[in-house]
């Protein structure tokens, strides 16, 4: 599959977070950002359908809605 190249401008703080996540997940910056894009698209499509995004505490089963602005 052919791929296109782009330049991405990030602040120091954003780059630091990106590098921390890459180290934690053992992924390159490209792989991590592709993953983020897939997740962002998935969330956006579900929100557009009227779904809500929740985090659930595994122990208490308590749900907290993630407010998407």
């Amino acid at each position: 599959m052919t791929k296109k190249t782009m330049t991405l401008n990030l602040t120091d703080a954003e780059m630091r977070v990106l590098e921390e996540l890459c180290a934690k997940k053992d992924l390159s910056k490209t792989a991590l950002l592709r993953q983020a894009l897939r997740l962002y698209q998935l969330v956006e499509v579900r929100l557009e359908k009227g779904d809500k995004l929740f985090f659930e505490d595994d122990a208490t089963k308590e749900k907290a809605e993630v407010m998407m602005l």
Partner: protein
Amino acid sequence: MTVTVSPIYLFDVQRGEAAAAELWDAITERQLADWEAEWLPELFSAVQRLHRAGVERRLWPQSRQWDWRRKVKVLQGLLAYPGFSIVCGGVTQGMMIVDTTKKRCRIDTQNGQHLVYVEFVENAPWNRPELVDPPRYRGVGSILIRAAIALSQEEEFKGRIGLHSLPQANGFYANTCGMTDLGVDPEYEGLRYFEMTPEQAEAFITKGNQP
């Protein structure tokens, strides 16, 4: 939609020889038409044979309830859910949809890492030894699992994959694929959950077509 088609080989059981086939990195209208016109009539005939032979309903193929057209429609265009299919003899022989985004590894040594989760995978009914004896083609399941491993490697997940297995396929994932059986998942219809480590993926690829 751009579809990449890769040459592969299945094993034609009746002829006892390799059959040229294609691996598509998509599920298109052609596959869905094959599912409706070719798979479903064969699947319902097989279920009818099981019923008439007195086989309990819980032992019938559970994928009989899957609606591939609806699945593809719901997931169409989502980057997180790529699909794959195998075509041989002009007919679709297998289909698979994977999730590259939402699921994480459960095995202790790789807990929390990314993996490719096999959401749905199905072999054409005439290729399933539990439904048809002898089956027409062998190798469909293995090639689709290899496609999931290859995608996992391409996404830098190092070959890690996971799936919940229908009861009829537990032996295939444990023995043929060499995946780790993490037992029954009470939160997923009581199905067993299997996961593959990078080392297991490498071993499965190296093993090739040997059983």
